[in-house]
């Protein structure tokens, strides 16, 4: 239709490995003929996408592997959307993309960025903290889209660090709100061996205390690299045996065994957590609140479904773009002020205005409770009230967070 050929953003090269190779992914979309929108009046605002590649286990059950461009494609769509909006105001954006291989120095890659005012970070928590503490990052706004670690929103928060991805605490709160609503409040918890699994389990324990649910028993399960598929029928009877419980919760972020646990529990109980009914920032069945539009645009661009980190990547760039629209400027200082202003609210296809918490930089947002077939519920679940917004029933509320880096007022 129309002049779609002319509107495709220019791609200079593709995503490549290597810390020193910063590629300008896409510049301002050229304005089609006859378009009244003015050319960008000021300079383009540069947003960087910086990713630490991590080793992923081979999928056990022929699941689609986690795509190599997870997060990056979301950021790219965010850039397109921002330029499509910005051109009506003479604002233009560009995205640089840098991928750091495992073992390489992400700090050097950060220092090598020509412009590091706005950096979308898709990296584990240790990298995120290492970068946030660099002297070169003092004036930066880092947008975390890859690390769900609650500690980054707690005692390890940083003034120059915003979190677009929900924390494990938010995910766990969403799940336990759902369980409390259903009165399925007795939880048998099975955790995997990875450090992230322990953090996920800890988030569930904390949420259980917060919403008066109960962890009635806990067990650990380590497949030790073995193939559980042939033995799952008998193997899981032991770790899922315990006192009366309503659900079995699993903490297995890497997907090493959790999927096989479903329907293989000792008692006929639903599986919830990292598998089964899973709290997620985004997922394939999400379609309400015009999400189907975003899903469609993403699929057209990436050729696959949008994953939670993709959504966070899109959201991070979209937030910077909307801040520029609010500021009517691509001046980095003005955009930064708009982005962190107390009243700044943005849409994110989740049915509510989203905003950054003033006490720890976390984007407040609904969390979906998904199984692969459907959105079972959306948290905050009805009945969980908060004096500020119901969204603040998810994750660390102001009095709960040990973050002191944001000395500003509440909001």
């Amino acid at each position, binding site marked *: *239709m129309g002049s779609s050929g002319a509107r495709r953003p220019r791609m200079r090269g593709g995503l490549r490995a290597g810390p020193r190779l910063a590629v300008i992914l896409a510049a301002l979309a050229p304005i089609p003929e006859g378009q009244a*929108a003015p050319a960008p009046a000021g300079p383009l605002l540069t947003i960087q996408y910086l990713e630490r590649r991590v080793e992923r286990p081979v999928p056990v059950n022929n699941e689609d592997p986690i795509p190599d461009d997870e997060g990056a494609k979301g950021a790219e769509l965010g850039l397109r959307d921002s330029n499509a909006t910005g051109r009506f105001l003479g604002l233009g954006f560009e995205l640089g993309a840098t991928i750091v291989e495992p073992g390489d120095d992400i700090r050097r890659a950060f220092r090598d960025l020509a412009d590091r005012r706005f950096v979308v970070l898709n990296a584990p928590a240790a990298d995120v903290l290492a970068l946030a503490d660099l002297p070169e990052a003092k004036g930066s706004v880092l947008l975390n889209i890859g690390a769900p670690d609650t500690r980054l929103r707690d005692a390890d928060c940083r003034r120059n660090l915003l979190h677009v991805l929900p924390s494990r605490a938010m995910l766990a709160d969403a799940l336990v709100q759902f369980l409390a609503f259903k009165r399925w409040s007795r939880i048998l918890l099975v955790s995997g061996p990875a450090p992230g699994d322990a953090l996920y389990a800890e988030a569930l324990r904390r949420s259980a205390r917060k919403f008066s649910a109960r962890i009635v028993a806990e067990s650990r399960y380590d497949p030790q690299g073995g193939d559980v598929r042939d033995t799952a029928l008998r193997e899981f009877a032991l770790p899922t045996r315990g006192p009366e419980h309503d659900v079995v919760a699993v903490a297995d972020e890497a997907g090493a065994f959790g999927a096989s646990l479903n329907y293989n529990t000792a008692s006929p109980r639903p599986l919830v957590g990292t598998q089964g009914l899973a709290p997620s920032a985004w997922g394939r069945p999400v379609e309400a609140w*015009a999400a189907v539009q975003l899903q469609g645009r993403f699929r057209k661009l990436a050729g696959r479904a949008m994953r939670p980190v993709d959504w966070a990547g899109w959201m991070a760039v979209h937030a910077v773009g909307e801040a520029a629209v609010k500021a009517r400027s691509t001046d980095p200082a003005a955009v930064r002020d708009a982005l962190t202003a107390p009243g700044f609210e943005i849409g994110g296809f989740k*049915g*509510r205005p989203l905003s950054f918490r003033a006490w720890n930089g976390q984007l407040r947002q609904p969390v979906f409770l998904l199984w692969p077939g459907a959105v079972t519920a959306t948290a905050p679940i009805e009945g969980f009230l908060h004096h500020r917004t119901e969204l603040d029933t998810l994750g660390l509320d102001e009095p709960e967070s040990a973050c002191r880096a944001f000395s500003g007022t509440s909001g």
Partner: protein
Amino acid sequence: MSRLTPLALVLCLAGPALAEEIFVSNERDNTVSVIDGDSLEVLRTFPVGRRPRGLTFSQDGRSLYVCASDSDAVQVIDPETGQVRHNLPSGEDPEQFALAPDGRTLFIANEENATTTVVDAQTRKVLAQIDVGIEPEGVAVSPDGRTAVTTSETTNMVHWIDTQTLAAVDATPVGQRPRFAAFTADGSRLWASAEIGGTVSVIDVATRKVVETIAFAVKGIAADRIQPVGVQMSKDGRHAFVALGPSDRVAVVDTATYRVESYILVGRRVWQLALNAAGTRLFTTNGVSGDVTVIDTATFRPIKTVKVGRFPWGAAARPMSSAQAPDGRAAGAAP
């Protein structure tokens, strides 16, 4: 029958009944429900294209236009029989549209590809495709026919289109996720709702500047659940009705003072609004509860809930006789 005048008899033969009908598109059922304006019962339901949303009538009431979004077409339908006469080219994913006062030019928002398509309903030809912001949704044409607007839900702007040159001439930023636009009867103001922003912007059409931003507050309802969507001016122009989405309320706003006079409780997640020809009744589509609330516009009280299909989206009153002023007013199709 003997008491009928010849004129009335002719009307009876030419058109169906003199009674009024309100048409509702059911987004999930791929159907249109027809509600009798007097008895407020569903008279008939007929199948249409996939994912019907915006709908409106030709000025003589003899053709129903329906945006069948997933069929990528605007369907022209016989409102009596529900038979599809033909499709109009509409561009991809048509969501809402508006018929210009000339009775033949349709301005259609193509949600998926960020354009507004202009179609001549008589020649069935595309006159232009105009680039606008992302996810264009609300469409309206000014009463003098000179200006068309499209709201873009992700770009968050009202785009102004010159209907002579068919070019976008300006854009006015409004609140987050603008979903609907309606001109006042005198054409001096444009009201644009912002679903996520929670506001309605009133724009001075001459300067294209926002002159008033109306906010809403309902006791016991969280602010972020108050999400303005459809806007309908009352017949006398003194009030504007604003559908407030998942707060399940319709706000009544004084158009002179911009003060909210009342909030009317309706069905769940109210989307769009339509008046009957006389302006005495307001019909609301309630997406989640799958029904239509009928409101008495004199008392601002709901008088009946009418069950329709799944996800009722748009509503439009059919102009029924020459005795009544032709009025293509419709939710999803501002005049």
